[in-house]
Structure formats: structure tokens, C-alpha cells
């Protein structure tokens, strides 16, 4: 129960966009904090253990539009979407925008101040079928109707941050941006949190359906950011290994193509360290199938093997030259 005395929230939806920070060198802690200082009066949250993890203050964007709905039902929602940016090791930038919704809201739009004391909540006009909205949100836009679009808010935040004077906009390597969209529904009382579905689509969109004891739980946000970060790392490394044409081009060429991985990515793999304890089992499910860490380890091993192999002839050349 919160201070405003509203009914419980039954749904949380959001989107995380993850990309390489468009600048040549990783940002040290002080610059990372400066970049994410989205508002002068609220400090960033900065954590240095076990890796550098900086979280911006949250920004609100007002919305008044239809909720997504798989069935095509038209339920108006009014409120605010909250957005924040996260920078990991001064290298990987994420923007997350999300909202939560109660099952029932006022029939008519209230004065705007009503919504500002409920940050991040979008209230339905009347009754909301949360399962329908959750599925509609993961499916994407239906029938050309403009429904709630937190992804656009996240995208704008990334765009704004990339215009910052601290960045030289010269990325050390090419990479794709990924999107992870989640819906979390309230589970049965006393039931453990479960991840019902994790879907990878080829256009860089990942969708996650969760059932949790409390969709208000901030841990859901942290879990989804952690999943998105590691999914991006894995996706990026897979592409890099593919592009290096490892095994089909001469060794030195492949090594040159893989070098950014060593410089910028390999030390970033640290799944679950920032996930709230009750939600860690959800990650562990994904570690079994498809086995994110297993795939990561194999890729890293391949890269290291190549580097080792290339070091041997170099050494021999060195010896014969002298």
C-alpha cells in the first residue's frame, strides 16, 4: 500500500534499450555520474562493486492514450511513464522506460497533479484486463492504433544522452542496439516469482513475461536491465565473432577484428550480481536453457584460443629474426 492510498497494481510493463556508449574510451566514474545527472537536484546512484554501475535519477513523461491490448479492447490510460538510464563500466548504456497499472482507475481524467503524486503509474479509465494488456504489450502495436509506447521514451533518452558534450561519438566497434520488453503480472498469493516466457526475435527485440508476487517490486526493473545487458553482451559478441570470420580468414586478421571484445566486453559479464535475491532463481532458469553463461564462456574461450594460437608464430618469428 502506498501513501496515496490507491488500489494494488496488477501489471508492470517496460522496455529496456541497450547499446554501446558512443564514445571511444569507457567513462570513468566521475564522468559517468556527470553524464547521467539528468536533473541538478537529484544525485545519481553510483556503485563500484563488483563493477561500476551508475543509475540516473528518473524522468517522467505524461501519457494519455490507449493501453495495449491483445484483444483489441480500447481502454484509455492516463498517467506517467518513468525513465532512467544505466551505465555499466562506463561502456554499456541502457535506457529503461516503464509504467505500472492498477486493475481499476477513475472513469474520467483527473487534474494533472493527481498523476504526478503517483509517478510511473498509468491509471485505466474503468477496468483493465491486465493479462490482455500484458500480452498486447509484448506483441507490439496492434492495428495501427497508437498505444502506450515506453520504448519511444527510452529511445529518446538514449538520443539525448548521446548528444552530451562528454562523448566524442566515436564508438570503438560496430554493434546493434537491442530492445527488451517485459510484462510482469501479479502471481497467486504466496507463489514464487516465475519467468513464463523469454522470446528472442530476429529484429533485436526480446520479450519477457513474468509472474511476480508484487508488480510494484523495483527488483523487476533491475532483473530486466540485467537480462537485457547480458543478452546484449552475448548478441554483440556472437556478431563480432561472426564478423571476424574466425577460422576462415588468416589468424592475424581475425585477431584484429576480435580485439575490441578483449578491450571492451569480456570483463563485463557478471550476471545476477545486481538482481534482488528473490528474483535470482528466474535468471537461473535461463542459465539452464538456453544457458547464457555457457554460450558466453565458449565464445570467450574461442577468442582466447585464437589469441594464444596467434601468439605462438609471432614468438617464433621474433626468435628467428634475432
Amino acid at each position, binding site marked *: 500500500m*502506498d*501513501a*496515496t*492510498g490507491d488500489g494494488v497494481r496488477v501489471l508492470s510493463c517496460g522496455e529496456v534499450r541497450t547499446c554501446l556508449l558512443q564514445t571511444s574510451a569507457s567513462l570513468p566514474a566521475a564522468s559517468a555520474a556527470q553524464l547521467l545527472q539528468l*536533473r*541538478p*537536484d*537529484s*544525485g545519481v*546512484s*553510483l*556503485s*563500484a*562493486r563488483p563493477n561500476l*554501475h551508475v543509475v540516473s535519477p528518473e524522468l*517522467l*513523461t*505524461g*501519457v*494519455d*492514450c*490507449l493501453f495495449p491490448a491483445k484483444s483489441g479492447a480500447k481502454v484509455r490510460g*492516463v498517467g*506517467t*511513464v518513468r525513465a532512467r538510464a544505466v551505465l555499466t563500466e562506463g561502456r554499456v548504456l541502457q535506457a529503461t*522506460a516503464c509504467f505500472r497499472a492498477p486493475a481499476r482507475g477513475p472513469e474520467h*481524467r*483527473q*487534474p*494533472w*497533479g*493527481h498523476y*504526478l*503524486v503517483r*509517478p510511473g503509474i498509468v491509471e485505466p479509465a474503468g477496468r483493465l484486463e491486465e493479462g490482455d494488456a500484458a500480452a498486447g504489450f509484448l506483441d507490439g502495436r496492434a492495428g495501427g492504433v*497508437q*498505444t*502506450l*509506447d*515506453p520504448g*519511444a*521514451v527510452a529511445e*529518446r533518452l538514449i538520443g539525448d544522452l548521446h548528444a552530451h558534450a562528454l562523448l566524442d561519438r566515436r564508438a570503438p566497434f560496430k554493434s546493434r542496439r537491442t530492445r527488451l520488453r517485459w510484462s510482469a503480472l501479479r502471481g497467486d498469493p504466496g507463489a514464487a516469482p516465475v519467468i513464463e516466457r523469454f522470446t528472442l526475435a530476429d529484429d533485436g527485440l526480446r520479450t519477457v513475461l513474468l509472474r511476480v508476487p508484487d508488480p510494484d517490486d523495483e527488483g523487476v526493473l533491475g532483473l530486466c536491465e540485467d537480462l537485457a545487458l547480458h543478452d546484449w553482451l552475448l548478441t554483440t559478441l556472437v556478431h563480432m565473432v561472426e564478423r571476424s570470420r574466425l577460422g576462415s580468414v588468416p589468424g592475424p586478421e581475425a585477431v584484429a577484428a576480435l580485439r575490441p571484445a578483449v578491450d571492451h566486453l569480456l570483463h563485463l559479464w557478471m550476471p545476477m550480481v545486481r538482481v534482488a*535475491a528473490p528474483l535470482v532463481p528466474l535468471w537461473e532458469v535461463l542459465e539452464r536453457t538456453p544457458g547464457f553463461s555457457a554460450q558466453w564462456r565458449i565464445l570467450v574461450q574461442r577468442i582466447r584460443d585464437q589469441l594464444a594460437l596467434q601468439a605462438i608464430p609471432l614468438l617464433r618469428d621474433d626468435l628467428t629474426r634475432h
Partner: protein
Amino acid sequence: METVFHETTAEPRVAAVPLAHVSLELGHLYMDDFAAGPERLRAHFGRVRPWADAVTAMTAAQLPRGRPRISTCFLVDDYFTRYSSPAELVPMVLAEAEAAGLRIDYLARESGCARADGVELAASVLARLVEAPPPGSNGSRPPVREVGWMCNGERTPAVDALEAMSGVPAWSPPSEVGARRHSVFTDVELWDDRGQRRTWSCAFLAAVWQLARLGLLRHRGDPVMSPVRWAGGFPGDWDALPAVVQLREEAAPFAAYQTCSVLPNRFLDVEHAVRIVLGRVQVEPRALEQVSERAAQEGFPLPAEVADRAAYVLYSGS
């Protein structure tokens, strides 16, 4: 499971401030009022006195138990025009208030609402404004902003935009969001820039003033515009005085659950603008919670919306 490891930079904290029930503003003093002499102030305080008594009685009636904590304050404009000096003006204000049977607990400077304790307060509040979305806003387009302005609805489309689109009707009226059939559309100027200098509008500074009195301003989690106890003589320069000065040791806390301002009715427009701004400020959520929790513990009725916590008495005359 207990967490052993903590990082203070990763766990932002928000300090609480002491709270009275009501912050009662006994007046705003501008250059013109000062120029009109002590008689103007005497007449003003004479009009305020019965309302001050009424606020005390009303607050007592709202309390389930105990005595009402009411602090009084007085705002002096040292921002738009510099006149007189604290040494000359403050004793005169205090004497006239006392003659009317009023006591002033806190004296504030208007420039303190722009900048206090080394913090650009007005700029911080500006960064917390969240535009009310017109119907159809789904987050995909940035909110329409007119730099330096804030309105309570949708503006008339700009003339050049109309000319660019042929066949579009010449004019469409502005509209108030959430209007009951007919609009009362208001556009509030928040600041202007002349050369290198930004000047905040009176309406915007008055909104900051309300937020300070409602105990909702923080800078990196710390209270700002906190009162400083002042005893003894007053300096010859306004800048030598803190943003908010506490004049009486035994005064109730400066910040309060609700505010009430007793002002002549020429302030109606400015305070309407203040209400529009207050309805669009996203205050620090933790500060908001602290105030709500404390009010609930005391059983004091607190409107959920920030703008509804500010009450006014606008008396006739100047």
C-alpha cells in the same frame, strides 16, 4: 536475508524536515508597498489579522488532538528591485505586524527562491516540471514545449505552421486540459533571458516559495532554504541575510503540511499561475512520502495533490 555489503553512493537518502500544521504567510512586500510608507503595511496587517485568527481556529478544529502548530512568514522582494536594507526595513515590518497583534516567525527573501545555500533552486524546480499530456500522447513524441512558458492546456497552433499547411482553417482556439466544457486557458511565463542573465518570473519564484513552505524541496537529498536563526541587529545589505531567517526562538517549524497566504486580490493572477506550476511539478517522491506519513500519524487531513495544499485568502483592495 541480510545484506552485509553497503555502498552509500548507491543508496541515496532523503532527509526529513520538521513540519508545522500550517505555514501562514502574512504578506509579500514589494518596492511599491514600501514606497507607500508604513501606513500601507499597517492597513495590510489590519486586514490580515482576522484571517490569521480564523486560520488558527480552523486548524485547531481539524486536529484530532493537541494544539495547532502554525508558523507565520513574510516575504520581501529583493529580487526584482533592490530597495531599502534589512536594517531599515525589517524592524519597521516587525513593528507594524506587532501593532496589528501579529507575530512574524520567519522572514524570507524572494531572491532566496531563485538561489539559496549555493543551490540554483529555481533551475532545479524547472527541471522537475512535467507537462500535462494532451489526449493521444503515447510517449512517442516529445511533449510540446514553448521554451520558458508553461500552460494549462493546448495552445493555438503557431501562425507560420498554419501558413505552411494550405487548406487548414485559419485559427483554432487554445484549450484547457480537463476543462469543464469551456476553457480557461492560461499561459505562464517562467523566465526570460536578457543577455547572459536569466530572470525568473514572479509567478515561478512564488511556486518555489510554496514548495519550500510545504517542505518538499531537497538538493541531493538535503533540505534547502532551511531557516537560519537570527538574533540581534539586521545587516545593511540583503545579501548578508540568509534566504529564510527565523526571528523567534519558539516558532513552530517553517515548513508545514499546508500553506495559507493572506494577500490583496491583485495577487490572484500570480497565484493562479502558481497553482498551474504546482500542478506540474514532480516533487521528490521520498519527500512527499515523508510528509504524507507524518500527516497520517497525526491524523491531520492532507490533500494528496501538491497544488491543493496551498490555500489563499484574497482580500479586496490593494
